[in-house]
């Protein structure tokens, strides 16, 4: 076992991990941050998406040891400081961007990472960016709509489907 220390959602945390301990297991089991989901565990679905040093990664495809010293943000760190939802999260609620909700943490993490570099993405850009995030309810349409709305764009032209 090796000791790792990282900053998770602004807080410094440490723990003993094996070489094979995945970042997602460290977050869920050791830190009890169960908002990060394991959907497929095969690096396909993106439900486990978190930010490591500001970059979106699949936490099921990175070892906890590789995040030693890094700054990690999970879905639990995405709300406003006063505990209310961020504009992006509120937009998912407003536009019915989730059905079962399983993929939602990953969708929010992926979308926020897109909006950081591209504040007003087109529908095509959003869909391209979400290629690594799979929604098992096939609710992509409203997810795209929620992201466009959160970026301050008019979504009235996007028909409800």
């Amino acid at each position, binding site marked *: 076992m090796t000791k790792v220390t990282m900053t998770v959602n602004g807080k410094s945390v440490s723990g003993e991990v094996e*070489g*094979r301990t995945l970042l997602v297991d460290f977050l869920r089991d050791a830190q009890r941050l169960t908002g990060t989901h394991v959907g497929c565990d095969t690096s396909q679905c993106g439900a486990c*998406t978190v930010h*490591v040093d500001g970059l*979106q990664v699949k936490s099921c*495809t990175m*070892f906890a*040891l*590789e995040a030693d010293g890094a700054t990690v943000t999970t879905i639990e760190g995405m709300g406003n400081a006063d505990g209310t939802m961020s504009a992006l999260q509120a937009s998912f609620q407003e536009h019915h961007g989730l059905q079962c909700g399983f993929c939602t943490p990953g969708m929010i993490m992926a979308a926020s990472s897109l909006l950081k570099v591209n504040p007003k993405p087109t529908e095509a850009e959003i869909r391209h960016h979400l290629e690594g995030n799979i929604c098992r309810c096939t609710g992509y349409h409203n997810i795209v709509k929620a992201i466009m709305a959160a970026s301050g764009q008019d979504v009235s032209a996007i028909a409800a489907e």
Partner: protein
Amino acid sequence: MYAFDVTRPKTVAEAVAALSGDEAQALGGGQTLIPTLKQRLAAPATLVSLSAIDEMKGVCADGGTLTIGGGTTHATVAAEASAYPALAALAANIGDPAVRSRGTIGGSLANNDPSACYPSAALASGATIVTNNREIAADDYFQGLFTTALNEGEIITAVKFPVPEKANYQKFVQPASRFSLVGVFVAKYADGVRVAVTGASENGVFRWKEAEAALSANFSADAVEGLTASADGLINDLHGDAEYRAHLIKVMTKRAVAAAK
């Protein structure tokens, strides 16, 4: 996964020393290796993570050559390889954004997946693969399915790309995996055109020499119109049979030539 240790050396020299240990294996971005470990298709005793080696990261353009550190992620290449726009565009479309945050050029070339994007760019550009102890020409480097000229414990520290006059990469995506069903990289240099095909052959990336000759004489999509890529030795699977892939090679080549800049 079976149990293993992970070490994180800070220099190439430390990594090479660590890789000389029993059952040690290099870990790049892990976007292929970690899923492989989960399936217990690999069982190293030690994984030597290359992600903390700063001297293996970065993109540098100098006198017509673009040098990319072996540990440079696809996202960084996409953002910083502006001296070679076709290569930056290729990197920007590998996998998905999370894969591009972790996956590295050295890892991709060392793995030499027959459907990976980077091997086509390296081969079409006549790139030089730089390792911890030698330089290998791309024409000698790719040796078949998941097979390269790398020796045990050898690390790709950098890749040197001669910047072409014009180039383009066209990928026909296999929609489930996002790997190329067929991908074609066309690069035009002063001394001729090189065309490399990925995704199609059971032997991994290869050059389509008939198209190279035709395009070197006349760099236009029409130049390959009369050619037929051979279906011999092409991958035949549920995503597409060999004849279909052969057809796609020509279509992707024409598109790449038309889009080259």
